[in-house]
């Protein structure tokens, strides 16, 4: 029982990170039909920039803040320099562009940072908290709390601000959004900025647990994409549930079967969804589009 609970805790912790990445996919996909495979690199930038800024002597909150701002900058540049000039290109072309951008970001990160693995000290120490026979790391609480906070903030933004509503409207019907005077280019830039911020924050809180390196984004993108697909591409609730499920499956697979194939779980899940559940658990957004 305690082993089971232990796996649940670890599964939810990594799952929460996947959920945040999946939310990033969702935001950009909704605003533009683009599946942004550079999403995982925002996580890397958040973690790596925090590591390097802290080693330069900055306090964690300051370093994390600058790292998030830097990531948002990269997200906006990605939109401005790579996505916007290709406006009107097919979704496949746009996906290729994001894959290219991801490779480019990794190349630059190798130069700006380095090729080593890095970690951050846990924010509130390493003393495990006993819960029901299992233990919970304080950093897991940071991850879960940050995820919860971001999900609530995103919900409030989307449902209770005019800009959030404009993003939802753009997702629902781009033509109508333009006709009511929504500047969809701006909305898309906003989606890239938000996704970059969410990814970077995920990177900051995850790094003490997962470690980080210039190329860690690829794996995160794969996991987050699997989560978004499982939940139904474009559905924010699905993204969160999908993320948690992938995290749990992966951890239970590693715990009860073998950890060798841990990363294959996400990949198998993508295939499974493609073959048997093309709209995901919660239904993708494509249904509302004719």
């Amino acid at each position, binding site marked *: 029982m305690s082993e089971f609970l232990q796996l649940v805790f670890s599964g939810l912790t990594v799952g929460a990170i996947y959920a945040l990445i999946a939310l990033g996919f969702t935001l950009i996909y909704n605003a533009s039909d683009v599946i942004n495979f550079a999403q995982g690199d925002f996580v890397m930038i958040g973690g790596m920039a925090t590591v390097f800024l802290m080693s330069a002597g900055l306090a964690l909150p300051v370093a994390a803040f600058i790292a998030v701002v830097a990531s948002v900058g990269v997200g906006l540049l990605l939109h401005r320099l790579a996505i916007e000039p290709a406006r009107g290109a097919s979704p496949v072309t746009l996906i290729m562009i994001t894959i290219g951008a991801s490779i480019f970001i990794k190349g630059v990160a190798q130069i700006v940072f380095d090729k080593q693995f890095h970690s951050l000290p846990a924010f509130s120490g390493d003393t495990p908290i006993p819960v029901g026979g299992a233990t919970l790391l304080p950093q897991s609480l940071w991850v879960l709390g940050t995820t919860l906070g971001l999900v609530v903030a995103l919900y409030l933004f989307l449902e209770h601000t005019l800009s959030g*509503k404009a993003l939802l*409207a753009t997702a*629902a*019907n781009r033509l*109508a*959004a333009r*006709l*009511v*005077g929504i500047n969809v280019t701006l909305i898309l830039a906003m989606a890239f900025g938000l996704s970059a911020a969410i990814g970077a924050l995920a990177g900051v809180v995850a790094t003490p647990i997962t470690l980080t390196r210039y190329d860690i984004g690829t794996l995160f993108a794969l996991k987050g994409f699997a989560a978004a697909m499982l939940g139904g591409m474009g559905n924010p609730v699905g993204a969160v549930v999908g993320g948690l499920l992938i995290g749990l499956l992966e951890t239970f697979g590693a715990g009860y079967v073998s950890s060798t194939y841990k990363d294959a779980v996400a990949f198998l899940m993508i295939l499974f969804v493609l073959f048997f559940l093309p709209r995901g658990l919660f239904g993708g957004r494509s249904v*509302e589009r004719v």
Partner: protein
Amino acid sequence: MLTVEAITSAYGRINVLHEVWLEVKAGEIVALVGSNGAGKTTLLRTLSGVQPARSGRIVFEGEAIERLEPHQRVVRGISQSPEGRQVFGPLSVEDNLRLGAYRRQDAGMRARLDHVFALFPVLAEKRRIAAMSLSGGQQQMLAIGRALMAAPKLLLLDEPSLGLAPLLVDQILAAVRALRAEGITVLLVEQNASAALAIADRGYVLETGRVVMEGTGAALLDDPKVRTAYLGL
């Protein structure tokens, strides 16, 4: 108020509008009729700026607007209720309407919302319901209401009666007349040519991307060519 001068527009390499000329004066209802694929929708899309003009000029209140972004045209007072309604399906009726005022978040918004509800009371009843669960006719009212929320000077209506029961068609057209009485100028695209021409001050007939006839609504209704080609009489 609006002058369209030699506008051409194309999808890819296929020209759909060939030098269209027309004029809408302040306070008028102008009907634009023509058969399937004549280019009526393309013209309205070009006026709103969601479809680029290849050449020609669009002058609105003395200003050339053919290069402006759609949102800049909304700010200047042009708004459109598009063909096929195009409501924001998952959003509530009220959110759809509030988004109509996206570029006009002013003190008058509340009053305009009440005004739209007065014009189409069924929307007030269903204000919390997702737009996609409305009937076709209700969605049409929502699309018109949403366009009105921008407080337009010129309202572009694309086939507001398409697929509606005759009773609803009458209700929508009565609403259009009421709008004109409030000072809103209307450019009305209809396949239902007789109904459109009956309420229009003037009309244009578009055929394969060209204006082939123009006149007062009454004159076009009486024209033998129009009667056979577009009214099925």
